[in-house]
């Protein structure tokens, strides 16, 4: 028994057990954004979602979007690059805060 169980994803709809109208609005929005070709293709959206899933470390989303990427024709090279984009962004976001550190150093007369 783990905190995150794969089978628990099936229970996502239970969020609508209370205040169902809010869940309905979310799912409609979610499916419109991710489930249709628009200015971005479904494949491009799935690759973005896969990258976000890794950055946010959501095991449900990693499972779901690994499959979604394959079912929209993406391949492991493209998926791995998407994860590297997420990792590079995370690294860059950490490092760019070095500017704030430098600002603080200067305020300390260094």
């Amino acid at each position: 028994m783990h905190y995150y169980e794969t089978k628990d994803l099936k229970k996502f709809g239970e969020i609508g057990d209370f205040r169902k109208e809010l869940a309905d609005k979310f799912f409609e929005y979610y499916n419109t954004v991710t489930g249709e070709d628009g200015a971005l293709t479904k494949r491009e959206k799935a690759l973005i979602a896969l990258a976000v899933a890794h950055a946010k470390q959501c095991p449900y989303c990693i499972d779901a979007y690994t499959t979604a990427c394959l079912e929209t024709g993406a391949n492991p090279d493209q998926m791995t690059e998407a994860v590297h984009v997420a990792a590079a962004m995370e690294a860059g976001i950490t490092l760019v805060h070095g500017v704030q550190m430098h600002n603080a150093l200067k305020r300390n007369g260094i």
Partner: protein
Amino acid sequence: MRELNVLNNQVQPDVSVHYDFNRNLENRKLDPKPVLIETLQVNIAKLCNQACHHCHVDASPKRTEEMDQRTVDRCLEILTENERIINLDITGGAPELHPHFDYFVLEAKKLNKHVMVRHNLTVTFDGHPHTGESKRYLPEFFAENKVEVISSLPYYQEFFTDKQRGKGVFNKSVESIRLLNNQGYGQENTGLELNLVYNPVGTYLPPPQENLEKDYKRELKDKFDLVFNKLFTITNMPIHRFREFLLRSGTYEEYMEKLINAFNPAAAEGVMCRSLISVGYDGRIYDCDFNQMLDMQIQNGKPLTVFDFDHDELLSRRILFDSHCFGCTAGNGSSCGGTTAV
């Protein structure tokens, strides 16, 4: 088609009670009946130079079953007697390894039938796994007889293709397609049709056929200077080797659930069993190649063979469905000619 919503579609009741395909059709008031018989699909041999992970025929170099001359001739007789059957679709195994393969093609062409061969590409280089007989003549033979060549290429990259079909298969397939291109296959205005087949390596549904075809054409042209006509996307059927893989990996129920959730009535209307008859190596007849592999023989008081073939009676038969049929009705549908829901 019904959209596959990545997260929301997971919210479904227990589907184990819905594995019954017939009940599913009844509930939806669908009743797919035979509409015509335009294709005779003949599985002439289970022998193959490959042993692919997904193969629903369980074909391999170890298999020995093959159609005898009398049954081949009866198939030709059926084609002669029935003008409405316009296509002969020869499959296996690797059908080219059958001793009467060339004869079968040549005789069918004399009858002005459109002949399709399910050609695995590598047999051209591998030859006969037992006798060593060369099959290098195949590209020229296909071209001379204007055979439509239909070949599996699980992806336009080496990784997926070799994972499914064995190490070295991708590079060999590329060179085999080159030989076919050199004969005019896939080129404009030659009338020589080369169609490729995609099926997923694992437990997911095929991407949209049209989009993937564009990717295949771009990548094969840019990287290998290869051309082909159409891409057919096919769903993995939960039978035989693939079913065993699903059971071993504990994903059988998950896969069935995926197929059932993606059930598409339009795909059910277009299932291939409505327009073809499948013939086994021993002459028994079936609604499709998958039913053949599951021994679901067409019955009319008794199990039927090619020697009982009666076109009009077969048109009035009930098609035999079972849980594997969810594979043909998921998403955009799946058949030997690709998607079925337009």
